[in-house]
């Protein structure tokens, strides 16, 4: 058999799943003793260009409470044309179209290599993509101009049949009618009063009378394919380009010492209402572009007096954030309406100060893979390129975005699902596989993700329910099935089905094989998501204590040591990186709010809980590469000892790409050696990390910041704050030796952390 690392990576590539444990403890009690819960990181739409589109519908188990999809794990009786469901053991007749089935003539879904398969549903109308732009006009001319140009540019990237709409706001909210007659017409709303969907429908004269909310399930009448506010790009691109070009700064005067009045809350509410009335249960994106915080009406996060700054962590701790609760509630209500209808809410916030992402985070978080983007100005490459990449296409030339998805999970009888952490909302679907113990968004076996892309990843927490001392469950393997139904960007409905199984093992006799199956990278991210979720509601130190406690318990359970002898502690290779991930996680902006505004913390956490394992791991423990004359670039330890004078370092923290020139390299560069022909190799050395950095910048979404710094440079702090401070001003014995750079910090180093960990793990008092 392949080694576990090979097994794990094959499974990830094929099925987009990583489990914390790849051999499962067979009883509830033993499972809880594993410390790290049995859980999965699932990337439902992981890019699989090799998957053939299956042009028929999946065959379902006939038991009403099961409805699992026929898969390679099912037992098939080819003579009787029967198949047994591997989840509920129901025997099912094959449908008439499968009469030709035999051992040598199997449908794709029974072949082992199709443990992940995608069905293209033929019935139902092809829905257009809908993009509703909600544009703030309270910003400097330069910013507004850049934003207008980006929006005009986006019309060229949209498919011609996509519907677009435009709402602008400042003190007032304007809903623009997109006629083709060359006359611009808009409906103006006050920004201080919220409107229900019904009021909006009457005021805008919208034609769709059927109740938008709660229409799920029942057959809604065919919605009109466009209306005066949402029109196909190909029809109104010229008018909309002009309309955007003519947008002016909000004309209301802003007096000295005041913020402009920005009716963001009402603007977003109108956007949600407009789509709710006209396109319920259809994939749509509401893209909101803001240059500052909401300052009036429902959803305001700060008053218009500049002398009162926007809430800080300090204010929140002191319960002194006047508008926070109320506005959070406003945006949460909007998010739940939008997600009920399958609509995505993106936020592009470009301002130097905070804009209220903390209050609005539920909009992107609840509505799926949405883009919450934070930049300084709309006239930056960071915003422009991030926005362009929203419309990136895959190899088949379709958008990488998918809409209105539901994920359902089916489990073997011995497993239940506790919940999910990631960009999803519960669909409150009860069923036999729902656990009573909730983790994250729980109490359901179905979740809605209004938007997702190939890297969107959910953490799914599982519970083993088999009783202690009960025999190993039938078949020796536990199975899971993930069924993701979504609207592909081509308009088709598609169903991606992944069925996967792992061996059970008796933890009392086979603990080694369970330990050997530990996936420390997946486990680190699964624990990190739990910690980040706690951090949203609990005090920072409590979260760190919880995380430490879990780590100590894991060391106690799986370490090899003599009681009260820290030096005897040994951890097997499968676990060896895990403590280090936890060390860096504790220092990360996901758990530490120090030096970050509430908006920044919300932003970092938002990104962390939706990206796939590789990206999330980069966020926790940045990747560091060294370039020198001594050989090709090599990955080096994220440690202060890696900072050497004759090296260039390239650090990727996901949010930043940083190039750091060591002391000597910086001096050489200053001296201009790279210009001299005989030192051409030095010029190449300088160029190599730049080229690699560009490669990272090229593929990353959202666009990271790019820092070029050197020894002693002020921005070197970004590197110094990330590396393990193995040398500090406190242990100066290393100074003068060419072995790294001391960091001026009182933070504990990994070495100290590990010493304490070992002490605590082996302590008989613990």
């Amino acid at each position, binding site marked *: 058999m392949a080694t576990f690392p090979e097994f794990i990576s094959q499974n990830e590539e094929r099925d987009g799943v990583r489990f914390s444990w790849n051999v499962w403890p067979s009883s509830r009690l033993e499972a809880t003793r594993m410390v790290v819960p049995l859980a999965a990181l699932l990337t439902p739409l992981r890019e699989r260009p090799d998957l053939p589109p299956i042009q028929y519908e999946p065959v379902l188990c006939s038991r009403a409470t099961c409805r699992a999809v026929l898969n390679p794990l099912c037992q098939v009786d080819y003579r009787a044309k029967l198949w047994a469901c591997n989840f509920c053991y129901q025997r099912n007749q094959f449908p008439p179209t499968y009469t030709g089935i035999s051992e040598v003539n199997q449908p794709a879904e029974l072949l082992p290599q199709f443990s992940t398969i995608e069905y293209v549903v033929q019935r139902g109308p092809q829905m257009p993509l809908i993009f509703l732009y909600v544009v703030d006009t309270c910003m400097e001319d330069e*910013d507004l101009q850049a934003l207008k*140009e980006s929006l*005009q*540019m986006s019309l*060229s990237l949209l498919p*011609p049949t996509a519907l677009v709409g435009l709402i602008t706001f400042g003190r007032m909210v304007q809903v623009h009618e997109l006629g*083709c007659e*060359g006359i611009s017409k808009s409906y103006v709303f006050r920004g201080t009063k919220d409107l229900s969907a019904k009021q909006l429908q009457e005021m805008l004269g919208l034609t769709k009378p059927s109740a938008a909310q709660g229409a799920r399930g029942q057959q809604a009448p065919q919605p009109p394919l466009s209306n005066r506010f949402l029109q196909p790009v190909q029809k109104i*691109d*010229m008018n909309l*380009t002009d309309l955007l070009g003519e947008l002016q700064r909000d004309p209301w005067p802003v007096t000295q010492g005041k913020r402009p009045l920005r009716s963001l809350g009402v603007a977003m509410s109108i956007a949600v209402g407009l789509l709710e009335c006209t396109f319920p249960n259809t994939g749509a994106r509401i893209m909101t572009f803001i240059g500052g915080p909401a300052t009036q009406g429902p959803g305001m996060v700060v008053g218009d007096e500049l002398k009162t700054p926007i809430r800080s962590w300090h204010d929140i701790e002191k319960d002194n954030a006047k508008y926070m609760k109320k506005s959070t509630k406003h945006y949460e209500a909007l998010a739940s309406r939008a997600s009920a209808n399958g609509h995505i809410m993106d936020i592009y916030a470009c301002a130097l100060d905070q804009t209220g992402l903390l209050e609005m985070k539920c909009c992107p978080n609840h509505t799926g893979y949405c883009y919450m983007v934070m930049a300084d100005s709309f006239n930056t*490459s*960071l915003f*422009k*390129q991030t926005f362009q*990449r929203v419309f990136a296409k895959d190899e088949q030339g379709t958008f990488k975005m998918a809409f209105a998805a539901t994920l359902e999970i089916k489990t073997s009888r011995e497993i239940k699902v506790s919940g999910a952490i990631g960009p999803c909302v519960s669909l409150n679907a009860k069923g036999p596989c729902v656990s009573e113990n909730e983790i994250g968004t729980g109490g359901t076996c179905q979740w809605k993700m209004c938007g997702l892309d190939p890297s969107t990843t959910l953490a799914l927490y599982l519970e083993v329910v088999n009783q202690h001392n009960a025999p190993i469950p039938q078949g020796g393997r536990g199975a899971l099935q993930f069924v993701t139904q979504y609207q592909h960007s081509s308009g088709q409905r598609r169903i991606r089905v992944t069925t996967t199984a792992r061996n059970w093992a008796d933890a009392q006799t086979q603990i*080694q094989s369970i330990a*050997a199956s530990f996936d420390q990278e997946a486990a680190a991210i699964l624990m990190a998501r739990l910690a980040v979720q706690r951090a949203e509601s609990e005090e920072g130190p409590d979260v760190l204590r919880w995380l430490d406690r879990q780590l100590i318990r894991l060391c106690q359970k799986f370490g*090899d040591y003599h009681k009260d002898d820290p030096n*005897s*502690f*040994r*951890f*097997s*290779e*499968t676990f*060896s*990186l895990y*403590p280090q991930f936890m060390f860096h996680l504790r220092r990360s902006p996901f758990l530490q709010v120090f030096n970050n505004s509430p908006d920044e913390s919300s932003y970092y956490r938002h990104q962390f809980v939706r990206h796939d394992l590789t990206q999330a791991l*980069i966020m926790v423990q940045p990747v*560091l*590469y060294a370039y*020198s*004359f*001594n*050989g090709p670039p090599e*990955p080096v*330890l994220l*440690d202060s000892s*890696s900072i050497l004078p004759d090296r260039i370092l390239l650090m*990727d923290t996901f949010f930043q790409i940083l190039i750091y020139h060591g002391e000597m390299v910086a*001096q050489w560069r200053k*001296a201009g*050696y790279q210009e001299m022909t005989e030192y*051409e*190799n030095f010029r*190449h*050395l300088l160029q190599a990390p730049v080229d*690699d950095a*560009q*490669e990272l910048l090229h593929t990353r979404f959202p*666009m990271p910041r790019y*820092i070029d710094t050197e020894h002693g440079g002020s921005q070197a702090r970004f590197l110094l704050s990330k590396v393990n401070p193995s*040398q500090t001003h406190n242990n100066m014995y290393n100074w003068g030796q*060419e072995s*790294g750079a001391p960091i001026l910090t009182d933070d504990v*180093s990994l*070495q100290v952390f*590990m010493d304490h960990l*070992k002490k605590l793990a082996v302590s008989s008092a613990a």
Partner: protein
Amino acid sequence: MDDLFVKPGNQERGWNDPPQFSYGLQVAGSTRSPLTKRGPPPPAAGLQAPPPCGDPSPDQQATSPHLHGITPPPHKMTTPTHRITPPPSGVTPPLSQATSSPCGSRLPPPPKGGPCPMSRPPSGPDSKAPCGPRAEPDPQPEPDLQAVSSVLAEALEACRQNVSRQVCEDIAKRLRLLEDSWTSGRLSSTVKRRMNALTLEMKSSHWSAADDIHRSLMVDHVTEVSQWMVGIKRLIAETRNLSPELLAFSPADPVQPEPVGN
């Protein structure tokens, strides 16, 4: 290769703004494997994937007491001796600033010549252009407005039979804007050249290629072209729907065909 470039970000407005990639580069995609590896296992101490000691068989590894335990990363890197020695004394760095290194000693220059092992070879054909603003290459003569606008005008004429008057007028308005910008010198030569390429594609009924050039212009030069480009876009969309016989571009044309990015 006008369409493959990287220009610096807007440092005035954005703190550490990343560079901007042209449409051509963005579409081209990545050519190298991503840098996602972590630090190597240091030989002396193994927190990061310690090498098995005594080479236990894989199934023993989980419990083997001989394995390396958790020990801190080393204070020294693998080869602490890779100090660059100054070149022979005969070679004095000609730059005087180099003499003032903080440690008081002379700054040894970087090693000269030799192979350059420090860059990763690209795993595919290298489509990257050097970073930073590029000097505008100007090997070809500037395209002629007449040639460009005549193709567009002919396409518009062909459209008039099938497309509503309003739309045609809107397109015509934008074609005039294009001509104004061109004659008043507000268009860069890159834009002019790509417009020329676009019209050549239209002439040969390569609608997707023409559309792609329009997109690249919108992405790379939106400030210059945003006002009128949508007219061209519409024109491409309308003419591709026309039956071919309505499209009779005048064959004699002085413009030389020019290779396009795709």
